[in-house]
């Protein structure tokens, strides 16, 4: 479980360097980039290729055919089964993240097409409590798997999560099992699960649906692993080498099918969908990507400590 309550170093750096101005400083190469150029470039630094995090909504807009997305299960909300309180109650935290992200939970699910190929899709919102896997996320993914099975459309999950959601305790841990039994039915039926691992993908989410994909791809530079780097460093009592647990590292170690730059993601997904028997919606076959409007920085914002 990544400590998403803590202020992530990179995001903090990003925020400090992204006021409202025309120019944005890259958190990796420290170059100043014209904000509009950054947005046109899908929030990838034109100088060093650093992929900034995207919100779930931006992710879907980037990949899906314009007008093809139909959201499902948008009205699912978390309960507070444990009566969990730290400095605030769990419902208070949820309410705050709803305001902050404009999303009701840490995943958006629905159906859509990519270059006409039909899919059931889910996109996780890291900005919402670190994209943590609680009952709502588990339920929405499970329903998406059921829906994929029913239509025999591939299921595409864009993963961005620090792991299970502490505030729902063991119930959140068991969402790993819940999504697994749902996804297992796809495997038995020959309906593909495609996972796209974005920055970051760790903990219980990495150890369940993220790595249960028939095809698993990742964005360049994404942090992917089971334990967080700090925990590992405490275990081994030394610094981890540069590039440890990056997407490129995982590709080299045999755990990813490909690392796909954001600019190629839509085309790559379309190809994957065609090659995994996605039926084609003829009306959408020539559609353009939905694209996005104004920059939404929520995904880069650190959550309140």
């Amino acid at each position, binding site marked *: 479980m990544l400590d998403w309550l803590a202020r992530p170093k990179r995001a903090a750096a990003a925020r400090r360097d992204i006021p409202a101005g025309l120019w944005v400083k890259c958190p990796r190469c420290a170059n100043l980039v014209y904000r509009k150029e950054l947005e046109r470039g899908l929030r990838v630094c034109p100088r060093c290729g650093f992929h900034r995090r995207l919100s779930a909504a931006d992710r879907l807009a980037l990949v899906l055919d314009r007008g093809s997305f139909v959201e499902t*299960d948008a009205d699912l909300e978390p309960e507070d*089964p444990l009566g969990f309180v730290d400095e605030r109650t769990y419902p208070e935290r949820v309410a705050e993240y709803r305001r902050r992200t404009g999303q009701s939970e840490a995943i958006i699910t629905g159906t859509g097409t990519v270059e006409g190929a039909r899919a059931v899709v889910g996109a996780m919102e890291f900005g919402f409590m670190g994209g943590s896997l609680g*009952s709502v996320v588990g339920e929405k993914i499970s329903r998406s798997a059921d829906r994929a099975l029913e239509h025999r459309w591939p299921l595409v999950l864009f993963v961005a999560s620090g792991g*299970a959601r502490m505030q729902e305790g063991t119930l959140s841990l068991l969402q790993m099992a*819940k999504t*697994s039994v749902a996804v297992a039915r796809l*495997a038995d039926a020959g309906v593909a699960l495609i996972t796209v691992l974005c920055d970051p993908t760790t903990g219980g989410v990495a150890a369940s649906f993220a790595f249960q994909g028939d095809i698993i791809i990742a964005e360049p530079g994404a942090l992917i692993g089971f334990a967080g780097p700090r925990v590992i460093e405490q275990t081994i009592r030394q610094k981890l080498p540069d590039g440890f647990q990056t997407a490129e590292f995982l590709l080299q170690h045999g755990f990813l099918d490909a690392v796909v730059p954001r600019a190629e993601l839509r085309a790559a997904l379309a190809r994957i969908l065609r090659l995994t028997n996605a039926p084609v919606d003829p009306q959408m076959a020539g559609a353009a990507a939905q694209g996005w409007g104004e920059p939404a920085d929520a995904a880069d914002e650190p959550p309140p400590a």
Partner: protein
Amino acid sequence: MDRDLAEVEREIADLRRITTTQQMNLGEQIAALEARAERLREEIARHPTAWQRVQLARHAERPRIGDYIAALTSEFLELHGDRAFGDDPAMVAGLGMIDGRPAAIVGHAKGRDTRENIARRFGMPNPEGYRKALRVMTLAERLHAPIVTLIDTAGAFPGKEAEERGQSEAIARSLLEMARLRTPIVAVITGEGGSGGALGIGLCDVLLMVEHAVYSVISPEGCAAILWRDGSRAPEAAEALRLTAHDLATFGIVDEIIPEPPGGAHRHRDDAVAAVAESVRRHLAACAGRPKESLIAARYEKYRRIGRVREGSAVVAGTTPTAGGQAV
């Protein structure tokens, strides 16, 4: 209650000191206080706090997987290796004869002493451990033998090599395949049920939990460190996480709680182990006749129901998908 006990014990010590230094006969008072202390101790053993249970679950003298296997099986054959990279001593896997029928048994292997604990990585598996377990579980499926998993780990090992060789992948794969295994799976949390490392062999048809065992998404220390930047507030976190067998039974996660002897399993290991063996045998017998299809369907339903979600104004969990949706 802990504090009460500590006070009484201090009083007893004071009286004892006075008895010896001031030659006073305080035997009667001491005896009364000691009786009270014993009552308090029993009370604690009967109703430990969440944090006390965490201590009991981690107790060094608690039964180990070898004890359970000895009680469960008339003969046992340990199998080794993941057939790809190595053999993980933190995970035990093998075939055992239970009531005259073969079964696979897999589980975490904590050590009995420091040397064994180091050799067995304190029961915290590397990816090879999960892959070995899955290999043996798949063999059980092929042999039409049921599976027993024995869970007792602080978690999967958070090491550099574990990451290099895919700890996430190994656990994820195990969960996916356990969901599909066409043979009964009875899982028992015998001690620490530490997050993904526990669940990695914990997807099952029947989940048993020993009375003072715990099962949690994160350790209380880790939780306290995240919430309050203060690991010493672990007792509070343990309470908040609702990680005891009784809590988890109310959430519908645990199917049966196996009682422990007074004071905890480590006080009467044989009794503790026998109770687990009895319960496992009973559930294996109950599963034995079930058709494979209905077994898998019930497993799906079992997990599909877990979780608490509000949909509109209703609290639901594991419901079927809604029909429509809205465009964004």
